[in-house]
């Protein structure tokens, strides 16, 4: 045993005596927060927490099913972290935010601006910038109180809801907090955040209601909030956001329904797209308005058909592809017009120009709003049908053939 070794051992032993200090936290000293909501009433922040009650969730606890899976409470104060600190006045355990899945922003807070919240998230190691942001029309707390069947933890249920929509429907995109930060600090400081609403009558905040098979109300994704920098400035409808997702290359998987021909809006056919790629390209001309070239390439399968066209024929396939393309163009057009009318550059065209052509961006920047108001869209859509499914002609047509 050399003296150095002895010294090291002594150091180690003294370190081991430190146990209990530092930041050790047993699991039963934590209040696992699954969702938070933030509201502003003009003077103070109110932060609401949805705290998971573990015993009532797992089957090991004796009283599972007897007790609500979560508890919701709020604290208020001038600063967000200070408000969180106040929770220790009424909680036997310390709040643990690492598993917080969603942050719900009340409408007033959204209008006031949530830069303070963003700062809290950036500054503290225990808060994750990957939480999903949602906006709600009224108070955020109301959303946290809702019980959701199927899922034990409402917070993660809401997150799964938006994630599922993002991956399989692509009508609403899930927005994580860091994406809002990126969006609000870019040249076109606009971010779209999905809204969550309670549809139906009353509240669904007792466990007793889970005994029924249907509920008078439920949580649902609603419109889409437009944030300029950190403030709420307006709303888009669902369809408008859907178009925007097509424009901005945010479609993952989606089912598109359309009419039998290019012009028809009598929807009788559906394609499930599982690959979609959009390229945006600004086209400059010295004597015309600025053009935005939108080039969509989408590959999908026919999943429903009630049109006279016969997908087994190549020329009919082309017609179907064109009809679908026309529908996509229509959807994108609506969305584009809405954005132009509201003067919000949700396509982040400004960033695109800045990135690819900084010198021109410097010229454009002073009167960008003017430029944007006169923006034109030049859409091109290539739809490719990969598979027509397991039957050929529409069943409707087959029956008709029998009549003849």
């Amino acid at each position, binding site marked *: 045993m050399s003296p150095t070794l002895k010294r090291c051992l002594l150091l180690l032993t003294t370190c081991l005596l430190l146990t209990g200090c530092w930041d050790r936290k047993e*699991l*039963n000293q934590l209040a696992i927060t699954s969702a938070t909501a933030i509201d502003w009433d003009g003077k103070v922040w109110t932060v609401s927490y949805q705290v998971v009650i573990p015993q009532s969730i797992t089957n090991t606890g004796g009283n599972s099913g007897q007790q609500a899976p979560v508890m919701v409470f709020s604290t208020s104060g001038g600063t967000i972290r200070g408000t969180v600190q106040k929770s220790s006045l009424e909680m036997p355990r310390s709040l643990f935010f690492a598993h917080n*899945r969603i942050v719900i922003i009340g409408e007033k807070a959204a209008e006031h601006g949530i830069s303070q919240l963003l700062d809290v998230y950036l500054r503290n190691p225990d808060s994750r910038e990957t939480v999903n942001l949602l906006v709600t029309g009224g108070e955020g707390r109301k959303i946290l109180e809702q019980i959701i069947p199927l899922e034990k933890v409402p917070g993660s249920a809401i997150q799964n809801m938006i994630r599922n929509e993002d991956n399989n429907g692509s009508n609403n995109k899930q927005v994580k907090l860091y994406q809002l930060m990126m969006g609000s600090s870019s040249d076109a400081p606009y971010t779209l955040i999905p809204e969550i609403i309670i549809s139906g009558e009353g509240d669904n905040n007792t466990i007793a209601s889970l005994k029924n098979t249907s509920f008078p109300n439920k949580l649902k994704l609603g419109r889409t909030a437009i944030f300029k920098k950190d403030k709420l400035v307006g709303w888009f409808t669902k369809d408008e956001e859907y178009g925007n997702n097509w424009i901005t290359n945010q479609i993952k998987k989606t089912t598109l329904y359309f009419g039998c021909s290019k012009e028809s809006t009598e929807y009788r056919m559906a394609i499930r797209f599982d690959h979609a790629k959009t390229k945006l390209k600004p086209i400059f001309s010295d004597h015309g308005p600025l053009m935005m070239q939108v080039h969509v390439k989408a590959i999908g399968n026919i999943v429903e058909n009630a049109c006279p066209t016969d997908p087994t024929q190549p020329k009919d396939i082309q017609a179907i592809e064109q009809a679908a393309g026309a529908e996509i163009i229509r959807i994108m057009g609506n969305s584009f017009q809405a954005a132009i009318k509201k003067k919000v550059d949700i396509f982040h065209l400004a960033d695109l120009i800045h990135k690819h052509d900084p010198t021109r961006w410097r010229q454009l920047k002073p009167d960008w709003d003017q430029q944007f108001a006169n923006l034109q869209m030049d859409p091109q859509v290539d739809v490719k049908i990969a598979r027509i499914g397991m039957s050929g002609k529409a069943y409707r047509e087959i029956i008709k053939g029998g009549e003849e």
Partner: protein
Amino acid sequence: MNPSLQVPFPLSTNLQDNVKWLKQQLGESSDMNYRQFELGVYPDTNGVAMFYIEGIVKYDIINEHITKPLLSSQENESYWRQDICFHDLLCQAITISDLSLSFDGDTIVSALLEGKTILFADGYNEALIAGTAGWEKRAVDEPQTQTVVRGPKEGFTEDLRTNTALIRRKIRSPQLRFLSLHIGRVTQTEVVIAYLVGITDPKVVEEARQRLARIDTDSVLESGYLEEYIEDVTYSPFPTIMNTERPDSAAAGLLEGQIAILVDGTPFVLQAPVTFFRFLQSSEDYYQRFDIATFIRIIRYISFFVSMLLPALYIAITTFHQEMLPTTLLISLAAQREGVPLPALAEAFLMEITFEVLREAGVRMPRVIGSAISIVGALVLGQASVQAGLVSAAMVIIVSFTAISNFVTPALNMAVAARLIRFGLMLLAGTFGLFGILTGCMAILIHLASLRSFGVPYLTPIAPLVMTRLLDTFIRVPRWLAMVRPLSKTNRTRQKPYDKPSPPPKNRL
């Protein structure tokens, strides 16, 4: 050297003096048998005295080849002519091949203690030593420790000669040499170094011989005694000398360039030099098909690290890094911990120590009451303790899985090392979380890299990196690829390169 004999005793020509002397040497010990024969028809000869120790001789040999000829010679006068000498008696009467003469008291006494028979004849100051050693041996049966599914089922026994024979039977080569020493001032235990000339590094043999020769102790009862005397590093949980109960494993070691040290009285043969990875390999790896063996070997490596780290990781993650767990798991762990009074560290320690106690009890218990342990064990390490609210169910799972993983390690001494280190790592985890575990692992790694076994770096072939040997460390390549002897410096080639088997050409079938 027998301490009672400082000066070599010169025998007297008087038979009675010699008899008295030899009796005195063993202090009239009750297991010494002595018989005197009247020989011949000459009144001036007192005849012959015979000594042997009961229980370590073969009686039928003594009866058939010593007593009988000597007694029959009494009638047969032609034996005892006037000019007869002791040597002739040797040559003619006693029909034992292992015969020698000695004038030296020391030699005589130790020969007697080895089970040989001593004959004194009146008028001669020398003794006849007849090899009659033989005793009750345990039969060669299956080794208790390193069992295999496929492979030879014979194990070493407590008898040294049986053991050397078992190795000799595996390697019928004149290159196989046994070098014998006697260690232990009181026990005079025979120790044999086995090596293969031309394959084993002579320096290693010489080093081993010197280290063994240096030992000055009164007793060697098991090879573990020697292990502690000759290992390179004493203050380390990791063994730097391997032991085996399997002749095939010892033979394979010899062919790889290891030496084997056999000790009389124990079935455990020491093997050196050895690397860390050898402890996690089983001889069966080489009997199974190589792909299966590789898979199982990798499982074994993983299990070793699991058995060392799993409780520590559990403690660290549940007390410091809860954010690393998936939410559902965290919630169910939290639910289990509701109502558990102890912090995770104390809980883990409690369970681990409980398990160690159970294990030890299982080893020490008389076989008759062995079934009790499984019943009690299931209670203390199972659902009952969870329902009693002492521990969480997850902890029980962790401890059980750790235990099972630990049993996977083929070498017991390495498994014990992992168990010891586990406790240290648990303390570190409970104090500093993952940071502590990482620090601990670094310390262990540094320590491992500093170890040597008879001069061979412990972490070969990883540090230093030896590419050719990597083929047989984590994976096991097919035999026709394993061309290099790992530990040999002199003769590294095993076989022709790339002697890959292939079906015969079509026209031959």
